[in-house]
């Protein structure tokens, strides 16, 4: 399988502070990968580096195209959608406007309208809240809205940063089920950063573990999940 997203010796900096010390991994097209690790390990920074939101050196390639040096909006236009930590919902706009914003770079009006309806099928609770201000939605609903907004881009690569944060387990399971469905139907490549390792490992094919800015473990998700030592040392369970 072709290497769809490649990171090679990625080093990222917040001002003078170096957060990533040489991250290297690849994703293949259509795969679901999870990036695990403790707080502050560098998981979020990795996603932000992919989206050009943090100063980086090294190589990031997406489908053959180098990403370092591009602006965030250019990277998005290449088909990479990022659901950030904290969701980044446009709280003062309603649900439908948030979805429309997800597709703001597309010009196929009819298809956009269709996609909005599709989102309402995938996430029925959003349909009920169609014209409600997004800021009034519950945590779980806002997370679903954030994912739906990202999907409106028709992304080829979907990045999710701690989608389970602050959500009830049942809600998270529903969300992950939907993500699996999307991956199967649309062949969308997914990279999920999670602190909740257990659920993430059930969802993913491959897992990488980050600690203090470096990859320390990698392998098929099932193996990592069954490896007690790794779980205890890095994942806390």
């Amino acid at each position, binding site marked *: 399988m072709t290497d769809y997203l490649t990171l090679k010796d990625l080093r990222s900096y917040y001002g003078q502070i170096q957060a990533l010390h040489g991250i290297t991994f690849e994703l293949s097209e259509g795969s679901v990968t999870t990036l695990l690790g403790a707080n502050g390990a560098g998981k979020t920074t990795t996603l932000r580096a992919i*989206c050009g939101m943090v100063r980086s050196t090294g190589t990031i390639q997406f489908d053959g195209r180098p990403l370092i040096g591009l*602006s965030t909006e250019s990277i*998005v236009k290449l088909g990479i959608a990022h659901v*950030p930590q904290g969701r980044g919902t*446009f709280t*003062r*706009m309603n649900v439908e*406007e948030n979805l429309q914003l997800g597709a*703001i770079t597309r010009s196929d009006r009819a298809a956009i309208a269709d996609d909005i309806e599709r989102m309402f099928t995938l996430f029925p609770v959003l349909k009920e809240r169609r014209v409600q201000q997004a800021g009034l939605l519950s945590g779980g609903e806002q997370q679903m809205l954030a994912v739906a907004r990202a999907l409106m881009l028709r992304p080829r690569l979907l990045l999710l940063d701690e989608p389970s944060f602050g959500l009830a387990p049942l809600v998270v399971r529903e969300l992950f089920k939907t993500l699996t469905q999307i991956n199967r139907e649309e062949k969308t490549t997914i990279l999920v950063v999670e602190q909740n390792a257990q659920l993430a490992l059930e969802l993913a094919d491959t897992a990488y573990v980050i600690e203090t800015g470096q990859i320390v473990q990698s392998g098929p998700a099932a193996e990592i999940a069954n490896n007690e030592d790794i779980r205890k040392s890095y994942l806390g369970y």
Partner: protein
Amino acid sequence: MELLTNQVLAGIATGAIYACMALAVVMIYEAIDHLNFAQGEMAMFSTFIAWQLLEWGVPYWGAFFGSVAISFCGGVAIERTLFRPLATASILVQIAGFIALFSIINSSAGLIWDFSIKSFPSPFGSAPFLGSQLISDHQAGMFFITLILLGLLYFFFRFTRIGLAMRAAATLPDSARLVGINVGWMIALGWGLAAAIGAVAGILIAPVVFLEPNMMAGVLLYGFVGAVLGGLSSPAGAVAGGFMVGILENLAGTYIPVVGNELKLPIALAMIVTVLVFRPTGLFGRPQVQRV
């Protein structure tokens, strides 16, 4: 009673201009968290451009829309060349940038068109409106044009994709980038619109205050009062604030003996300070939390 109605209506008419200035100020504020101290000067310059077009024989509405279009481009250009590089600089440097812009525009207007007072025509004339003694045609015209302008803007922001993108860029720039919006260009667009709105305000008020390079300082001050009253984060509030200021100004001038025409600006100052101190979010705005 008729005097009161007269003053309220007149206040609404001038309030329309203040509403325009307030709107232009808030438009830029939403985009960059800064007050454009040079907004009044830009409006003045736009009015001079319109005057020049008229001098060259362009019919009134041609000059009107011509100036508005040129102002739009000018606003975009100023943002891209001057303020975009300054975006990451300190507050002090940015304020210095605005003051520099103020000086350059004010001075250039004087250079090009000199400092003598000129008269500026009104497309409506000053005949009584519908025969009434209360307001003139021009005052009614100011009011209706402002309403049309506001309607267009409302439509633009609510129902067009660019309007939606601009709103997104203004409220959450990071999230906006993540959906592919070029925030830099949205800010430039905001400046262009603000400049265009300012042009409308200047062209409408010029027949009343006469055209000269220092005509807009007081008007801008009232625009700031309106914007602050409405809470700097709310365009609708800014508009409402502008109208309120117009009405209050007229009523105070008529009913409070000391005030008269002479104390208008100090009263405006007092209003700004009072609102900022006691209710910084204005009457309609949202509270801002400062991170430690």
